[in-house]
């Protein structure tokens, strides 16, 4: 049990967690776990990597708490950290698959797809779209996830990624062009 009142605000919890209150930190994790899970699994797919990235996001949040000045909401701050962690993971995957290809191996697809789903999951077109999204690099995938899947406004996506709004728009345009080109090749 957390021992935290349900009504405790994020600010209060952050204040206590920053002073080493484990219960407050647990309450923050439990409160924001679902939101982080949605973003992280959309970026990395389901599996161990996503779970690991989710944990890392909260650990980084905890380390950053002494410097957290409350200029943004905890949820926004946490999403920004989670996206950064996911970008690191995707970058590592890209390097790893590059090495595997270099030595003549067959690099695994960078996204883990659960094949046990229903008929919709097995739909060929959707799988092709997913594979194409998985082939995008981290910065383009982040924009696709935040802007299209999570339907966040461009301004918020720009804030989360720490880039100007114009960059978000151009990355989105480029990502859509890449996806269209990959699916064209597929079909």
């Amino acid at each position, binding site marked *: 049990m957390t021992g935290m009142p349900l009504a405790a605000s994020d600010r209060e919890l952050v204040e206590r967690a920053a002073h080493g209150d484990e219960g407050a*930190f647990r309450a923050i994790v439990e409160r924001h776990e679902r939101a982080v899970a949605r973003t992280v699994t959309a970026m990395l797919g389901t599996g161990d990597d996503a779970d690991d990235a989710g944990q890392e996001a909260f*650990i980084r949040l905890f380390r950053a708490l002494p410097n957290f000045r409350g200029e943004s909401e905890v949820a926004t701050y946490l999403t920004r950290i989670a996206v950064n962690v996911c970008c690191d993971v995707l970058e590592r995957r890209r390097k790893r698959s590059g090495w595997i290809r270099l030595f003549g191996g067959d690099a695994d697809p960078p996204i883990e797809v659960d094949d046990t789903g229903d008929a919709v999951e097995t739909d060929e077109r959707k799988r092709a*779209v997913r594979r194409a999204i998985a082939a995008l690099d981290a910065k383009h995938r982040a924009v696709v996830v935040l802007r299209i899947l999570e339907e966040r406004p461009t301004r918020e996506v720009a804030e989360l990624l720490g880039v100007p709004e114009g960059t978000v728009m151009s990355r989105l345009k480029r990502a859509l062009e890449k996806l269209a080109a990959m699916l064209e090749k597929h079909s």
Partner: protein
Amino acid sequence: MREDEIRDALRGERADAFAPGFADRTLSRWHAARTAPLPLSAALTRPFRVLAPLAAAAAIVFAALSVRHRDAASGQTLSDALLGARRTSVQPSQQRAVTLDDIYGLGSLKPGAE
């Protein structure tokens, strides 16, 4: 490429929660991170980052002072001055060969011996 098609494909892929026990795993990882000793590289990196700029600044100051007080009359070059090296010369009348016996012989133990 339609945005709703992308949204549809990704919605089927993402999960609404991590595997059960996520908070426990995160807390135990947090404990492990707090109790783990600092890696040697991190332990060395922190003081290095503080001391390296100070050391570099001190070296520049000493080099500038040495150049400013360069003793050109004695033939000290600029590079010698930068390194703080002084040129010394021995008068020919004071020159004599130094033997191993001078250094290690019993005579070197005599009081007043060089």
